[in-house]
C-alpha cells in the first residue's frame, strides 16, 4: 500500500474517532481510553528504542564480538526469543523482587517488551548486515578504514534500509503486546477498556473506540517506517552496483 493510502486511512480513523465522540454513548469513554492509550504509546516508544539498541548490540556482538560477547549475545537472543513475553514480564515483576530487585511496573513493561522484541530484532539486524555485498567491506578495507568505521559509515547505513520493513513489523508487534502489561498492574488501553466494559457493559462503543485507537497508532508506525525507508534509500533505489 502506498504511503498516501496509509495517511488517508490514518486520517479516516482519527476522524471516525472524533465523529463517534460526538455521541454521548461514546464520548463518555473516550477520555479514559485516551489516558490508557497515552500509557500504551509511552511503553511502545520507549520499548521500541530499547529494542533497537538491544537488537543492534546483540547482532554486532554475535557477528563481530570476541567469544564471551558472542556467547552472551547468543544467550540473550535465545532466551528472549524462546520464552513468551508474558512469562518474561512476570519474571521481571514477580520473581526479581524475591532477589531484592524491585522495579516499577512501567520500567518492567518497557524492559520486558523491549528486551523481547530486541531479541527478534537482533536476527533481522544480523541478516541485513550480512546481506551487504562483500565488495563493500573490501572497498572500505582498501581505503584503510577500521572495522568500526566500516560498520558505522559503510555497512550499517546500507543494512539499515534492509532492516526497516522487518523492524516496522516488530514495532507493531510491540504495540500490540503492550496489552500484556495490564497483568502487571498497569492501566494501558486494553486494561482501561476491559475495566470500563466490566462496569458498564457497553461493549460496542468501548471496543469500537479501542480498535480504532490501536489502528491509528499502528498506522502511525507504518507511515513513519515508510517515510524513513523512502528517505534512506535515496540513491539506492535503482541500484546498479553489486
Amino acid at each position, binding site marked *: 500500500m502506498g504511503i498516501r493510502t496509509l495517511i488517508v486511512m490514518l486520517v479516516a480513523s482519527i476522524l471516525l474517532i472524533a465523529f463517534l465522540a460526538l455521541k454521548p454513548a461514546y464520548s463518555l469513554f473516550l477520555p479514559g481510553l485516551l489516558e490508557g492509550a497515552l500509557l500504551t504509546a509511552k511503553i511502545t516508544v520507549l520499548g521500541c528504542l530499547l529494542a533497537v539498541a538491544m537488537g543492534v548490540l546483540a547482532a554486532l556482538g554475535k557477528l563481530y564480538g570476541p567469544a564471551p560477547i558472542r556467547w552472551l549475545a547468543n544467550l540473550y537472543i535465545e532466551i528472549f526469543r524462546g520464552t513468551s513475553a508474558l512469562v518474561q514480564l512476570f519474571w521481571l515483576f514477580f520473581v526479581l523482587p524475591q532477589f531484592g530487585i524491585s522495579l516499577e511496573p512501567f520500567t518492567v513493561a518497557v524492559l520486558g517488551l523491549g528486551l523481547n522484541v530486541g531479541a527478534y530484532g537482533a536476527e533481522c539486524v544480523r541478516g541485513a548486515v550480512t546481506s551487504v*555485498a562483500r*565488495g*563493500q567491506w*573490501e*572497498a*572500505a*578495507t*582498501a*581505503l*584503510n*578504514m*577500521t572495522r568500526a*568505521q566500516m560498520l558505522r*559509515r*559503510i555497512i550499517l*547505513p*546500507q543494512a539499515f*534500509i534492509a532492516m526497516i520493513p522487518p523492524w516496522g513489523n516488530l514495532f507493531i508487534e510491540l504495540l500490540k503486546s503492550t496489552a500484556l502489561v495490564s497483568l502487571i498492574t498497569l492501566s494501558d488501553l486494553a486494561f482501561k477498556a476491559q475495566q470500563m466494559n466490566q462496569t458498564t457493559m457497553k461493549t460496542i462503543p468501548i471496543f469500537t473506540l479501542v480498535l480504532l485507537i490501536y489502528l491509528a497508532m499502528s498506522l502511525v508506525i507504518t507511515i513513519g517506517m515508510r517515510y524513513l525507508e523512502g528517505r*534512506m534509500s*535515496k*540513491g*539506492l*533505489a*535503482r*541500484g*546498479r*552496483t*553489486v
Partner: protein
Amino acid sequence: MTDKPMVRFDKVSKRYGPLTVLDSLELDIHRGEKVAIIGPSGSGKTTVLRMLMTLETIDDGVIWVEGEPLTHMERNGRLVPADQAHIRKIRSQIGMVFQSFNLFPHMTAMANCIEAPMTVLGMKKAEAEARAAELLEMVGLGQKKAHYPSQLSGGQQQRVAIARALAMRPKIMLFDEVTSALDPELVGEVLQVIRRLGSEHDLTMLMVTHQMGFAKEFADRICFFYQGKICEQGPPKEFFGNPKNERTRQFLHAVLEAG
C-alpha cells in the same frame, strides 16, 4: 631507502585447502614501475593484488612495502604476524580499484571520495572536498559530483572509484581487472584515465588485465602467471614480440585469436 623495491613478495604462498594458488612467489616492483599481470583464470594473478591489499591472508613468506614488512612486524629482531595497527600503517600507502567498482551506493560521487580522507585521515571537510573535486575533474566527472552511483554508467562509476582511491594519496595503486565488467564502448574512458595517471603521477602501478593492447602500450613490465607461478616476465616489447616460454606462446595465441 631508494634502492629498496616499492613492493617485494618474498617467497609468498597462498593455499586454499589442498589447492596452492600461489607457490613461493618472488616478485620485486620498483618505485614508479607499471607492472601488468596477465594469465589464464585461476593462475593466481588476482590473488597477488588481494594479498597486497590485505584482503587475503598469506600462508608463507613475507610481503614488503618500501622495505617494511606488511604482513609481519619486527619484534625482538624477529618477524611476527602483524597486528591491525601495523597493517593499517603500511596499508595506507596502497590503493585499489576493483572489477565491480564497489562504490558506496548510499553516497554521492563526492561523498564516496571524501569519506575515507575524513574518517581515516581526519581531513577537514572543506579540504577533502577541494581535493575530491580536483580528482573528479581529472577523471572527467566534474559535473557528476552530486550523482549517486546508480545514476552513473559503469565507466563513470569506475572513474569515481579511481578518484576515490587516489583521494587517499597512495603511492601504490592496484587495478584488478578494472574494465572487465564494462560494456566495450566504456572501456576506453577508464583506460584513458589510467593512462593519464601513469604519465602525470609518480605512482607505482600493478594491474591485472585482459587488455593486451593496453598492457603492451602502458606497462613497463609484463608478468605472465601460470598455475601460481610467474611463468615469464619482461618488457612488453620482448614479452609480446618474442615470448620464450611455450605456455606464454599458447596463452598469447589463444588471447589474440579471441581478438
